[in-house]
C-alpha cells in the first residue's frame, strides 16, 4: 500500500498508510471529545482531514475568499530574537521589524512587545515601551497591539516578593500556597492595568494578554480582572491568548463570575473571557509529540470548533510551534503548518489565526 510522507508531533518524518492516517484522525478527535465533553468531528469532517493529510503536495491552502485575519504574539522577536524566542538573530530594530511584517510578510495586525515579553519587567521601562508604540503608530497602517505575558510565576520568590507555590505545595502548605497565589495575582492585575492604561493613552489599538494561565488558575483570574478593568476604562481592543488547552489548578478554588477556573477547556474559557469584556480569544490546544500530526490536528480542531461555536467574539486559534496541531520543534515543517492552518479555517471555523 502507498505510504504517505508525513510528520510526527515532534516534527520528525514518518511514513504512514492512508488507513493509518484515518485511524489517527479518528483517535485524535475522540480524545478531544472525551476530555472536553464535546462532540467529535463528523464523518465528513474526518474525511476532509484524511484528504488533507494524504494529499501529496507539500503545501496546501484555503480557497480564495475563505482567508482569515492573522494576529501574532511575540511577533518581531522571531526576527531579532534568539533561540528562546525561536528568533533568527537578524540585526534589525524592533520598529523596523514591525515594518517588515507589515510591508513584506502580509500580516493583518502586529504588535509591539518587549524582548522579555512579560508584563512585570515592562513596568519599570514603560516610557521606552510607550515611545516605541508612539513611533510605530505614526508609520504603520495595520492595527497595532501591545503584547506580553501575565507570567504570574515572576511574582513568586526568588523572582518576586510572594511565596512560591512550587515550593510550598510539595511541603503540604496548601493554604500558604493559595494565599501566595492570591497576593501575586492582585499585584499582577495591578501591573497589567497600569501598562494597559498607559498604552491606551498613546493610542495603541489593542492589548494582547499572551500565554494566559501559564501558572494556572490564579493567573487566569488575574488576567480576567485586568481585562474587565481595561475594557471598562479604555478603548483598547483586548485579546486573550491562552497558554494551554486546560487551566491548571495550581490554586484549585479560585472562581470568576461563579465559575471555578481550574480544569476549564477552551469552549468554557471563552465564555469567561467574553464576560470580562475581551474582543478576541486565542484558544490553545497542545501538541503531543509522540503522536502523528494528523492525530494532533484532528484533536486540535475538535476543541477549537467547539470553542468557535460557543463564542460570540472572534476566535484566533494559536497555531505556532507546539500548539494547534503544529509540530513541537524549532523549524516546524511548512507542509504540516499549512495543513493545520487549513483545518483550523475549514473545520475549526476560526475568525483568525
Amino acid at each position, binding site marked *: 500500500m502507498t505510504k504517505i510522507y508525513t510528520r510526527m508531533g515532534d516534527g520528525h518524518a514518518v511514513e504512514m498508510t492512508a488507513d493509518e492516517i484515518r485511524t489517527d484522525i479518528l483517535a485524535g478527535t475522540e480524545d478531544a471529545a472525551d476530555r472536553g465533553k464535546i462532540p467529535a468531528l463528523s464523518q465528513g469532517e474526518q474525511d476532509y482531514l484524511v484528504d488533507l493529510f494524504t494529499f501529496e503536495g507539500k503545501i496546501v491552502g484555503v480557497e480564495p475568499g475563505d482567508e*482569515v485575519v*492573522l494576529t501574532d504574539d511575540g511577533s518581531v522577536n522571531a526576527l531579532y530574537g534568539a533561540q528562546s524566542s525561536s528568533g533568527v538573530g537578524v540585526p534589525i530594530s524592533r520598529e523596523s521589524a514591525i515594518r517588515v511584517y*507589515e510591508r513584506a*510578510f502580509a500580516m*493583518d*495586525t502586529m504588535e509591539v512587545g518587549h524582548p522579555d515579553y512579560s508584563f512585570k519587567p515592562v513596568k519599570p521601562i514603560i516610557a521606552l515601551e510607550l515611545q516605541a508604540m508612539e513611533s510605530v503608530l505614526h508609520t504603520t497602517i*495595520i492595527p497595532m497591539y501591545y503584547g506580553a505575558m501575565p507570567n504570574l510565576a515572576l511574582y513568586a520568590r526568588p523572582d518576586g516578593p510572594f511565596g512560591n507555590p512550587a515550593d510550598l505545595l510539595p511541603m503540604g502548605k496548601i493554604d500558604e500556597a493559595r494565599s501566595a497565589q492570591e497576593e501575586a495575582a492582585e499585584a499582577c492585575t495591578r501591573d497589567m492595568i497600569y501598562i494597559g492604561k498607559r498604552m491606551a493613552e498613546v493610542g495603541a489599538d489593542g492589548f494582547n494578554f499572551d500565554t494566559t494561565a501559564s501558572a494556572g488558575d490564579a493567573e487566569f483570574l488575574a488576567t480576567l480582572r485586568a481585562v474587565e478593568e481595561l475594557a471598562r476604562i479604555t478603548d483598547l481592543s483586548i485579546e486573550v491568548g491562552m497558554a494551554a488547552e486546560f487551566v491548571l489548578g495550581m490554586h484549585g478554588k479560585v472562581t470568576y463570575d461563579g465559575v471555578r477556573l481550574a480544569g476549564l477547556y477552551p469552549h468554557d474559557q471563552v465564555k469567561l473571557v467574553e464576560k470580562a469584556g475581551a474582543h*478576541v480569544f486565542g484558544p490553545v490546544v497542545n501538541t503531543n509529540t509522540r503522536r502523528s500530526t494528523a492525530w494532533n490536528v484532528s484533536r486540535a480542531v475538535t476543541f477549537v470548533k467547539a470553542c468557535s461555536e460557543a463564542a460570540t467574539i*472572534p476566535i484566533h486559534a494559536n497555531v505556532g510551534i507546539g500548539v494547534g496541531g503544529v509540530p513541537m520543534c524549532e523549524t516546524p515543517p511548512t507542509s504540516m503548518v*499549512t495543513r493545520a492552518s487549513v483545518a483550523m479555517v475549514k473545520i475549526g471555523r476560526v475568525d483568525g489565526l
Partner: protein
Amino acid sequence: MSHALASGMGGIRTAGDLVARMQLHRKMRLPEAKAYVAQKLGVGTRELSDEVAMRELREELDIGVLTSVPGAARGLEAKARIASLLEVTIPSVERLREKIGPG
C-alpha cells in the same frame, strides 16, 4: 509566513487590515467583518483578499498601498482615511485630532 500563504487575508496587500479592524474594534465575527468592509469598499467579499483588485482600489481610495508610491497616504495619514471610510474610531487618529485641534 506559512499561515500568511495558506490562509491569511494578506494585510495591506489586500484588505486584511480593514477586516481586522472590524474584528478588533467592533468584535465582529469574520463573515460580518468581511461583509461590512466589502459594503464600504463597494466590492464582493472574495475581492477583499484579491491582491490585484485591492492594490488598485487601495491606491484609488488613498488608504495606504503596499509598494512605495510617492504622494500616497502613509502610516497615520492612511489610518485617518480608513477611519472615515469604515466609520470606525482608530485611537491613534483620535490622538492626532486632539493634537492638531483648537488649543
